[in-house]
């Protein structure tokens, strides 16, 4: 177990990178705390697998260092770094039994028979695959194969970190949920640092204590699921997390506060100082949008349609040519139609400059 530090890391798959667009991973400094459950979240192609492969040493970074507990491990091979990785598709040694599959990493490291037996039984118990131990691994279902892949990662109790690279891709939806809670449970019982890569926000938010959101080769925000939801540091995070994502409206400064098409919109972070040439946007989650009651005045919108999900009602509206979502609780009476006015919760409405949250 170890604290993992990334120092001035950069990586490019191009031999002689010219501009920042050639870098799959832009400049990065980051520390993964010992024993944490992290999720690495981002759309496909954002560099999260590259980052993972750099930590596991399957990829050597173009620049920068990887430190385990302060020791530079950049030149070390994957087995020297003593890490475990579970891949997107199950990797199974076809000719071996399930037992031998799980024992393989231990045998290669010369553990005693008795110790191997002990560890394999324990991990098989945790993963609930004990009845399969003597079967040939080749004929199992995809979810059991993936459990074996995970088991091979978990079987060594001295690994520095276990990494999961979108491990539930091939699993049936109803088993996904089960395996995910299994993993969470496993993390609590083994206390090893785990990094879970995914592009699925539900997976990330349920698994991790801390979520690292990446976009285009850089980390845009690190935070607990609640922080990501309530205070997105970047419009990308607001948009990517949540279903539907955060509403983002172009804004201009009008006196002290921002406004949208001439209507002042109070925000939680009124800017202290602006350069004047930033691209300003207002971000508010659909959960914090409500329709104006009688006597209140708000932002005029045109309601396009309302769908009822059973738990809440989702209103699709348009303000000017900007789309707007609002989530209304089930108990409220008639959903408005046609022309209406909306009010944003000022404590939960934030102003962004060039995509980034303004500090106040």
């Amino acid at each position: 177990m170890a604290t993992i530090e990334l120092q001035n890391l950069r990586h490019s798959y191009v031999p002689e990178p010219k501009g920042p667009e050639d870098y799959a991973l832009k400049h990065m400094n980051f520390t993964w705390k010992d024993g944490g459950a992290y999720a690495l979240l981002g759309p496909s192609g954002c560099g999260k697998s590259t980052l993972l492969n750099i930590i596991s040493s399957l990829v050597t970074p173009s620049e920068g260092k990887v430190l385990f507990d302060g020791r530079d491990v950049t030149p070390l091979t994957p087995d020297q770094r003593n890490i475990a990785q579970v891949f997107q598709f199950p990797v199974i040694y076809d000719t071996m039994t399930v037992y031998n599959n799980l024992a393989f990493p231990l045998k290669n490291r010369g553990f005693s028979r008795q110790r191997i037996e002990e560890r394999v039984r324990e991990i098989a118990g945790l993963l609930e695959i004990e009845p399969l131990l003597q079967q040939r691994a080749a004929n199992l279902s995809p979810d059991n194969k993936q459990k074996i892949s995970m088991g091979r990662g978990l079987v060594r109790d001295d690994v520095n970190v276990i990494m999961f690279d979108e491990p539930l891709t091939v699993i049936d939806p109803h088993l996904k949920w089960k395996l995910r809670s299994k993993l969470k449970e496993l993390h609590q019982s083994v206390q090893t640092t785990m990094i879970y890569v995914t592009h699925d926000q539900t997976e990330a938010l349920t698994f991790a204590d801390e979520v690292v959101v990446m976009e285009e080769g850089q980390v845009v925000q690190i935070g607990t699921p609640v922080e990501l939801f309530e205070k997105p540091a970047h419009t990308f995070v607001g948009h990517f997390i949540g279903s539907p994502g955060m509403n983002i409206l172009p804004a201009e400064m009008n006196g002290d506060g921002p406004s949208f098409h001439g209507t002042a919109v109070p925000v939680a972070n009124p800017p202290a100082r602006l350069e004047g040439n930033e691209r300003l946007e207002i971000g508010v989650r659909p959960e914090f949008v409500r329709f104006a009651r009688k006597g209140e005045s708000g932002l005029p919108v045109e309601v396009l349609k309302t769908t009822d999900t059973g738990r809440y009602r989702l209103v699709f509206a348009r303000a000017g040519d900007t789309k707007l979502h609002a989530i209304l609780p089930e108990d409220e009476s008639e959903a408005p139609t046609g022309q209406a006015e909306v009010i944003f919760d000022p404590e939960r409405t934030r102003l962004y400059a060039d995509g980034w949250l303004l500090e106040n």
Partner: protein
Amino acid sequence: MAHKTENPRAWLFVAPVLLLVAFNAFIPLMAVINYSVQESFGNNLFFWHGIGWFEQIMNSERFQATLLRQGFFTFIILAIELPLGVAIALTMPKKGFWVPVCLVLMALPLLVPWNVVGAMWNIFALPDLGLLGATLNGFGWEYNMTSDPFDAWFTMILMDVWHWTSLVVLLSYAGLVSIPDAFYQAARIDGASRLSVFRFIELPKMKHVLTIAVLLRFMDSFKIYTEPFVLTGGGPGNSTTLLSIDLVKIGLGQFDLGPAAAMSLIYFLIVLTFSWIFYTLMTKNDPM
């Protein structure tokens, strides 16, 4: 029960295939069976001979010796070509500029016609003029393929290895490149040695293509005719007379149609039985 549609016109569409198969396989095979149970004295006169020819062939020392020789040849070339082919495939690059170069180089021997291969090696092996023959003699080995049975065998096997190892290489290579990178990465993380990677990842993933390779090389080498015939003509003496060469001698040389037919049937059954047993064993554990 499902209703079956009767449509006599369907036979019309099947007819060309039936005709083709009838003329190129079924009728010739029946003719062979016909010959194998009859005695003929020319003038198209045939007399029933029962299983006499089969008994004669099975008890003939000449056939037993030829079969043994054939088995030995097939065993040796399989024992050389399979490991060699796999080894070459393992060293070939997986991507980049050299991939097409290697593939074309490997495919070249396969493109040369059988009789040309035989003629080429015949000249190659001439003790005074041939590159191989002259070189070996230059090193002090009194090499002469036409008088020394060992030299004849040596040349014949070398020729087959040159001609057909590429097939094993190409099949193995196809099996190797289909292994996803994740398997190699997982093995590195699991701390597997190079030998373990071969034993537990590459070999199992190549199992199917290697099964095909063994079957093809077994059948082809068991049926081999042109190359050794052009190279040595079965000599010196009978030392390189393989099954098909002997069969042609009996059938077309001595015009003993009955024994030749019986021999081809026995020969055919050996190839069929071995291939069936081998294939069944290799695919026994496959998931359906």
